């Protein structure tokens, strides 16, 4: 359980981090500006899966499905409707990810532990095969490219995205999502999820409909993952089957374990750590960066299961 600190300390820290992230694009050079935006997007994806891994104790190896369908949903809106509309892309992306989440949740939540993990992995392979082979609609291996929509805010008119406004837009969405997720995990609903993680038979015995809670948890998690997908689509203007592939789900699990499961902020830190590590190591090792990452990951599972954040917290408290 998270140690209760005084709310003022928490909100001060929150405000400082938010302010730092807000001024980041103004002071950072071009490359790092884009990098910070990307960390925020992957961080949102990591947070979304933390609901399952950290809070409910269900390891999902299928988050690439929701993320990928968010991207493809946004792509569908941006390609089919002229002129491309940001909010329509959001709606389509969330609908696609949400529908997939309902489907996956219905089947996979009947199972526990490793069976759940394998089933989500199998679903991610199913969606990958469908998207990879359905060339007429999804563009197959080549994926889809599309135009970036205008940033249109109700009452404020529309403007082209600049790197700064894109960053602030992403920051806004991620911050609101974080606050929502935090509220959810602290609500009675979130408490039930945590009690499922701690002792599922007992939670059932108390009288909670465990299956229903799990289905809602998977759906919520899928929706936020789809949101991250939409942001990614808006930033990068292309959709590719690789985003639906298992490798992405694996990375999300790595973010969670490295940063600290069940903390929401931890997975974001994990994503930042992972991406920085990749950036630093891949200059020398190209794609072999996953060798040191994998070794660190395995060592952390064995020796530091509470992740970087949990480890830091414990050291600070000593």
């Amino acid at each position, binding site marked *: 359980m998270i140690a209760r600190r005084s709310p003022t300390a928490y909100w001060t820290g929150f405000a400082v981090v938010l302010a730092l992230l807000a001024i980041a694009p103004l002071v950072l050079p071009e490359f790092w500006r884009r990098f910070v935006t990307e960390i925020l997007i992957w961080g949102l994806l990591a947070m979304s899966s933390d609901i399952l891994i950290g809070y409910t104790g269900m390891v999902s190896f299928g988050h690439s499905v929701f993320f990928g369908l968010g991207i493809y949903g946004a792509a569908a809106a941006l390609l089919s409707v002229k002129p491309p509309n940001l909010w329509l892309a959001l709606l389509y992306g969330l609908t696609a990810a949400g529908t997939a989440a309902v489907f996956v949740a219905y089947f996979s939540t009947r199972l526990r532990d490793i069976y759940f993990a394998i089933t989500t992995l199998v679903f991610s392979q199913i969606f990958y095969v469908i998207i990879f*082979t359905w060339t007429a609609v999804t563009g197959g291996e080549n994926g889809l490219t599309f135009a970036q929509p205008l940033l249109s805010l109700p009452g404020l008119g529309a403007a082209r995205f600049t790197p700064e406004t894109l960053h602030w837009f992403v920051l806004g969405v991620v911050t609101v999502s974080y606050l929502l997720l935090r509220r959810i995990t602290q609500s009675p609903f979130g408490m039930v999820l945590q009690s499922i993680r701690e002792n599922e038979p007992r939670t059932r015995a108390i009288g909670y409909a465990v299956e229903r809670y799990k289905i809602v948890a998977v759906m919520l998690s899928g929706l936020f993952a789809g949101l991250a997908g939409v942001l990614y689509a808006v930033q990068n203007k292309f959709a590719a089957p690789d985003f639906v592939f298992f490798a992405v789900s694996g990375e999300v699990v790595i973010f969670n374990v490295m940063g600290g499961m069940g903390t929401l902020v931890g997975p974001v830190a994990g994503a930042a750590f992972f991406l920085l590590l990749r950036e630093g190591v891949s200059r020398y090792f190209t794609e072999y960066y996953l060798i040191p990452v994998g070794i660190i*990951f395995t060592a952390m599972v064995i020796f530091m299961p509470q992740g970087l954040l949990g480890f830091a917290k414990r050291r600070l408290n000593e």
Partner: protein
Amino acid sequence: MSIPLDQILIQTVNGLVNGMILALVASGLTLIFGIMDVVNFAHGDLVMLGGFTGAVTIAATGNFWLALLVAVLVIAVFGAALQATTLRPLLGRDPLTTILATFGISLVLQKYALWQWGPSARRIQEPLTGQFQLFYLQYPWYRVLTAVLSAAIIGGFWLFLRHGKYGIWIRATMQDRIMASAMGIPVPWVHTGVFAIGAGMAAASGVLFGPLGGVTQNMGLDFTLRAFIVVVVGGMGNLGGSIFAAILISLLEAYASLVVSPAQAVIVSFVVLILTLLFRPTGLFVPTPK
């Protein structure tokens, strides 16, 4: 659309051959799960490493049988080392941590293979080049040989489990870890040994599969997934069920590839898995209760 009978028969033979190789992979996986509740996510990567070890040995010596032996021994020792260093500390913790740890191992092994042997597929030269007439096809004898060899390895292993002294240790540990330990069986070493045997069987299937599909660094995930499916459908820890499920799934995939592309035929096995989990969560054959 009607499918000619000879094509169906050819796919039946193909399905049986693929099924036996898959059964060899899956029996190692189910054994490891049955004895220490570890879902080995890196099992397919052990198949891949075995294939590469075999390919390297063949390139050096030119002898397929020697390569098979070397690959099995090397990967078995490697598996034992892997188990002792990464899985032994996790014994008794949440089974989810073992899936995470083996997932990390799989990542490392795959990228190591990419680094060491590059992204292109390696083909192993088959030891037997003869063919026989199967309807309109020249069917290679080697395919039949792999099925027979896989069956022989599984059969030999089954006899060992049934009658060998260490086989009895393994079955005892599987039934009751604490009791076995109380009877003087060195349970941690049994775990390591079983992991080594499973890894060796995976390596054998990698070498046997080499001449058929080639060895690539990213073949592991596919093998892991299919072996998982087989193990779940056959019942976790149930050796006979796994063999039956491996053949069943391979046959279904072979028939499906008559109608759709082989890439899509994979979905058939996924559907079998989901249906099994929904209606028979303990597998088609309920395993002997622990």
